[in-house]
Structure formats: structure tokens, C-alpha cells
């Protein structure tokens, strides 16, 4: 009798897997990632390799050292020269453009992590910034059904209290319309990222990302970002970037500054 029940249970599990349900954990088994969190440190993506040390993303001459292919190293150097010339605008400056992945894990302001059995949402206040990680047992769309988007498609599963997910379908940077950070780093549309997101203590979270990209990288590139929990009761707010954007981009890529009358105060606009 017991053997028969186990067989039936096994069949139900198999049916569940086939229906895309088995990977979905019970809500009670999920970790508590509630609260408002803030990334630790500045917005250089790979702080382990940045030169000069403590260099800030966007400052002339600051760069990281991922294992770039020759083609993408040349592209990075070209972007670094643009930064020196003041003509490397941040694509999010136009407002409404997502940071994209993996940059969404590397932005200022605050984060919330909404965990449910079917999906986890990473909500970046500085945005628009939403990363959807599906954990309902689904597979990625077929390659011909996936197109490059800023944040791509993410499918994950739980390994204990760690959310492990892969991200594919990322948009290729065209004329730097999506970047990793303001040092000028970009990836190709071949990029995939495996992320392990977990709480390391009551007040700290960690995202370990391994970036692979057959066009841009000679080897996997591992980067870890950390997030600190802010005091209970902290608010995250709406971030309406277009509300009063006084920093539009000129035709030459220069970031302008508008006066209160809406006209540039820069001495040269192009």
C-alpha cells in the first residue's frame, strides 16, 4: 500500500513538473526580503578592478578591467575618450529608458525585493527599474521568440534561501543606448548572466553575478554587489524622471543644463 502511494505521489510530482508547477516553492518556504535596501558603495559596476581605486563612474580616465575581447576593449577605450570629451551621455538622462540588466543591480537610491512563489521582482526606485524573475517553472522562450530588451528575460529557481536565475535576451548596445555603468562599459546581445541573490545577514543582501558574452568577453566575469537594509519604516517613492529633467542631451552628446525658464544656460550647447 505504502509503495503504491509513493508511486502515485511520484506521478503527481511528474505531472506537476510537466505543468510547470514543481519548481514553485510554497510561500512559507520563501525568505523574508522585506524592507527597503540601498546598494553599498558607488556605481562603478566592478569595484574589484576599477582603476584608479575609488574612481567614480563617469570621471575621465576611470575604468574597470573585465576580460574583454579585443573588439570590446577597443570599444571601451573609444567610450573612455568620449567621457574625457564630455560626450558620453548616460542613456537614462532622457528619462523613461530603463537601466537594463545588469545595470539595474547597480543604481543609486533604494531597492525593494518582492518575493512570491511564482516570481520575484527587484524594484529599483531609480528607474524605470523593474527586474522580473519568474520561478513558476517556466522555460525561456525559444530563441526565435526572444528579442533583445533592456532587462532581458529572467528565469530562476530557489536553492535554499538563494534565488538563482539566468538572464538572457539582452539588448545590444547601439551607440551606447544601454550601458553597464558610466565608465563606458557595454555588452553584446550574446550576453547571459547567472545571478545568485541571497540575504547574508538580517541587514545585508548580496547579488553574485557571472556575466558570459562570447562576443564581448574572453572569460566569465564575476561581479558581486551588496545591499544594506535601511531602518524599518523607510519609504521608497515614485521616481518621475521626466517631471523636471533639466539635463537634456545635445545632438553632439553633451549633457546640457537648463535654467528655470527651460533654456540651456551652458555657454556652448554643441
Amino acid at each position, binding site marked *: 500500500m505504502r509503495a503504491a502511494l509513493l508511486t502515485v505521489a511520484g506521478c503527481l510530482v511528474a505531472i506537476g513538473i510537466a505543468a510547470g508547477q514543481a519548481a514553485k516553492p510554497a510561500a512559507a518556504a520563501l525568505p523574508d526580503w522585506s524592507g527597503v535596501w540601498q546598494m553599498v558603495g558607488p*556605481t562603478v559596476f566592478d569595484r574589484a578592478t576599477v582603476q584608479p581605486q575609488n574612481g*567614480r563612474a*563617469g*570621471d*575621465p580616465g576611470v575604468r574597470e578591467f573585465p576580460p574583454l575581447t579585443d573588439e570590446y576593449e577597443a570599444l571601451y577605450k573609444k567610450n573612455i575618450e568620449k*567621457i574625457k570629451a*564630455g560626450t*558620453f*551621455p*548616460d542613456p*537614462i*538622462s532622457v*528619462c523613461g529608458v530603463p537601466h537594463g540588466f545588469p545595470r539595474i543591480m547597480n543604481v*543609486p*537610491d*533604494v531597492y525593494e525585493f518582492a518575493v512570491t512563489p511564482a516570481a520575484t521582482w527587484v524594484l529599483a*526606485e*531609480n528607474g524605470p527599474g523593474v527586474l522580473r524573475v519568474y520561478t513558476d517553472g517556466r522555460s525561456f522562450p525559444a530563441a526565435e521568440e526572444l528579442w533583445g530588451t533592456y532587462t532581458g528575460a529572467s528565469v530562476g529557481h530557489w536553492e535554499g534561501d538563494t534565488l538563482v536565475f539566468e538572464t538572457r535576451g539582452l539588448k545590444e548596445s547601439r551607440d551606447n543606448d544601454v550601458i553597464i555603468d*558610466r565608465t563606458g562599459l557595454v555588452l553584446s546581445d550574446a550576453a547571459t548572466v547567472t545571478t545568485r541573490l541571497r540575504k547574508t545577514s538580517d541587514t545585508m543582501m548580496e547579488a553574485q553575478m557571472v556575466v558570459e558574452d562570447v562576443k564581448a568577453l574572453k572569460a566569465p566575469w564575476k561581479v558581486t554587489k551588496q545591499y544594506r537594509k*535601511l531602518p524599518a519604516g*523607510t*519609504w*521608497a*517613492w*515614485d*521616481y*518621475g*524622471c521626466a*517631471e*523636471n*529633467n*533639466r*539635463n537634456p542631451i545635445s545632438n553632439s552628446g553633451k*549633457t546640457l*543644463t537648463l*535654467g*528655470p525658464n527651460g533654456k540651456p*544656460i*551652458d*555657454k*556652448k550647447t554643441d
Partner: protein
Amino acid sequence: MKLTKLIAGIAFIAGAAAPLAAHHSAAMFDDGKVVELNGTIKEVQWTNPHIWIQVVVDNNGQKTEWSVEGGSPNTLSRNGWKATTFKSGDPVVVRVNPMKDGTPGGQFIGAKWKETGKTIGHWE
């Protein structure tokens, strides 16, 4: 921080200051220079993606309006700021990283209210 030059209400101070998180490149600001604006608050735009503080500096009768960019109201509010922190007409000294091209604009560092001596931001 060392005061190196004083020009009728505007002081140029050597030294860098911590930048504010921004939604754009900060290439237009000279973060190696600090300008001290001795003036009056004209207007505050408590808006995303940045707040803007309009400061009028009176240089022997010649008034210049400076556009001072701050962080997002979201982050500032979590650090003790309010939409009413600065009020129109407040006499203040505001320190900024100025724009490189000499335009009367800059990135907010800190401020001191002249009447009360109260400060906000980075002020030492």
C-alpha cells in the same frame, strides 16, 4: 577646505566634495573646485530627477541667478530634507561644484543659513 579667492559674495574654495547621485553625467561640473554663493533663495523646485535651488547673488547691485542642482527628493527626504527646507527669501551661503564653463550653475554640496547658522549637506 581653504578659502583662496573672494569676489563680492562668491568665494572660490580649493578642494573636492562628495558628489550627489545623479541621473546624468556630471561632466559639466568641476568637482575639484568649490564656489561659495552668498545670496538669497529665490525658488526651490522639489522635483525628480533632481531638486533645483535658485540662488540670487547680489554683486554690488548686479544680481546673478545661480541654478544649483541637488539630489533626488526621494533620497534627500530620507536624509532629513523637506520640500520646505529652503524657503524663498532665505539669506544663505551655498557651496557648489561650479559648472566648468563658468555658467552660473553648480552641484550642491552644502548650505548655511546666515540668520541661524544652521547648516545642511556637507559643511565643515
